[in-house]
């Protein structure tokens, strides 16, 4: 490229005469933007493409970490379709997804509407409500296991003290809801404050106009507030789905996948790291990856558009 350029004269000639070093090329105005991306792209390629290809490869094999993998074709996937445990885990994950998102949105919206005003101590309320968000889910699961224990948990002590019957929250029929409850407890502040941020940014004059026109509060809420909050609700749904599909830590300190609470990531983990059935575990991982992608990609594109800088 350089040899084709016309010979330079003047003060620049000296600099251009020699071949630019690699460093100069990398930091030149033309290539600098790509140079800056090198670490990111290298890391992503190694840590994402490699496990993906690896998992796809082993999902067609039978391998138990010892000896040579044997090629079994689609056997693992065929087994998966008829594996009741896997299908149940899948269903439960969807259940958790729907329950958590619906409750978080519903209660979150209620709280956001309640707190959408200036009141004394609002900073304290906000600060205290946000506390659970950043605490390690694992530690919270250990804690909940203690609080909700049937025999010596604090909750049952309280219930007994006020004359109510003890609750067995870990029996198989409701343990999954307990897990949902734990997750909702931690993430309720998230939806609440996203929606509150939305409510605070709504234009006041529109609501003023609606009030002057004599629109009822319910009508205003349904026709004005909700539509304007839709983009934020979308963001909550997308992000929460993404995180909820990957629910693992809350199970670890509590049921460990027992009493009908085995979720998608847990069964994948158990198959690979407890039963050492790498081939089958890889097939599960690939399916769960594909489902996540299918579920999130569409919503995510939408989200990206919203996040793009508004210039």
């Amino acid at each position, binding site marked *: 490229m350089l040899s084709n350029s016309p010979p330079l004269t003047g003060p620049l000639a000296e600099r251009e005469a020699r071949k630019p070093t690699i460093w100069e090329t990398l930091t030149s105005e033309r290539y600098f933007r790509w140079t800056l991306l090198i670490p990111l792209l290298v890391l992503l390629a190694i840590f994402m493409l490699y496990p993906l290809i690896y998992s796809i490869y082993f999902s067609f094999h039978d391998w138990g970490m010892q000896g040579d993998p044997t090629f079994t074709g689609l056997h693992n996937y065929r087994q998966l379709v008829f594996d009741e445990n896997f299908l149940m885990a899948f269903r439960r994950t969807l259940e958790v997804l729907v329950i958590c998102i619906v409750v978080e949105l519903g209660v979150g919206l209620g709280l956001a509407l309640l707190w959408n005003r200036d009141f004394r101590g609002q900073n304290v309320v906000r600060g205290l409500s946000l506390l659970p968000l*950043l605490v*390690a889910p694992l*530690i*919270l699961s250990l804690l909940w296991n203690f609080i909700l224990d049937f025999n010596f948990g604090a909750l049952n002590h309280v219930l007994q003290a006020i004359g109510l019957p003890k609750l067995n929250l870990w029996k198989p029929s409701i343990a999954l809801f307990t897990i949902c409850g734990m997750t909702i*407890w931690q993430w309720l502040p998230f939806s609440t404050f996203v929606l509150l941020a939305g409510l605070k940014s709504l234009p006041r004059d529109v609501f003023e106009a609606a009030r002057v026109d004599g629109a009822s509060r319910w009508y205003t809420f349904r026709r004005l507030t909700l539509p304007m909050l839709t983009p934020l609700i979308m963001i909550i749904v997308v992000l929460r789905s993404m995180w909820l599909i990957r629910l693992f830590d809350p199970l670890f300190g509590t049921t460990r996948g027992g009493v009908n609470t085995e979720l998608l990531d847990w069964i994948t983990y158990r198959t690979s790291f407890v039963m050492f059935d790498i081939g089958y575990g890889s097939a599960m991982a690939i399916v769960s990856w594909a489902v996540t992608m299918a579920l999130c990609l569409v919503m995510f594109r939408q989200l990206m558009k919203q996040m793009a800088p508004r210039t």
Partner: protein
Amino acid sequence: MLKKLFFWVITVLVLVIIVAPLAWIYLTAFKGQADLFAADLRRFVFFKPTLENFVVLFRDYDFWPNLLNTLIVSVVGTLVTMACSLMAAYSFARWNTGGGDILFMTVSTRMFPMAVAAVPHFVFFKMLGLLDTHFGLILLYVFFNISFATFLLYGFFNEVPKEVEQAAMIDGYGRMEVFRKIVFPLIGPGLAVTSVFCLIWMWNEFFFAFLFTRDDARTVNVLLSSFWGGLQVQYGLMTAGAAITILPTLVAAWFMQRYIIRGLTFGAVKG
């Protein structure tokens, strides 16, 4: 008046539900065996505080070394993540490199299920002897956070007007100087917020720490999880350890109030 009462009843109720479990950690941590499972509500709060749990935790378990491991991994991991994602985010924000597609690809890796990555990396790390090392865990954490950090920083970079940089370049600054002297100081808050989010993510991470570390690089969360199970659950020790471990995250949550929502929504909601 009634409305006001309703407002405060609900608010206080919500706050109690939110704070009580966290307070329970700190109460239990100072309880002796006798008070641990007491059914009497008065003894929930009024008991003879003891440091017994902490003493046993520090004396008989590797609590400090494990906490140090967590600290090393999260601090070094955050530094590396920030270095890589700062560069990438700048490139995306200034030149729209790759026309948005590369940025989208980058962000979508955040959806990548950890369970998919676990097996291949386990085998790979075992081969390279990276299991149970700080280095191995740091590498993984950097990978899991880099997309998030890049995207968050991208948002902050976009808030710096291009004109500022152009003016500086007209004044004879090189690209590197502009970055170092003009842009870098301007996105200070963004840098701080992004780092804290990475730090806390790494501080809290459990799945990979649990699978990939055993002794030398065992993180504090893995130690705490080991108090569960076996014949007896050691709640006193567990809460004592948790009380110390979650303290930084609680402090961060309190002081970053304004930025938590922005961070958690990848910058989509300013909060």
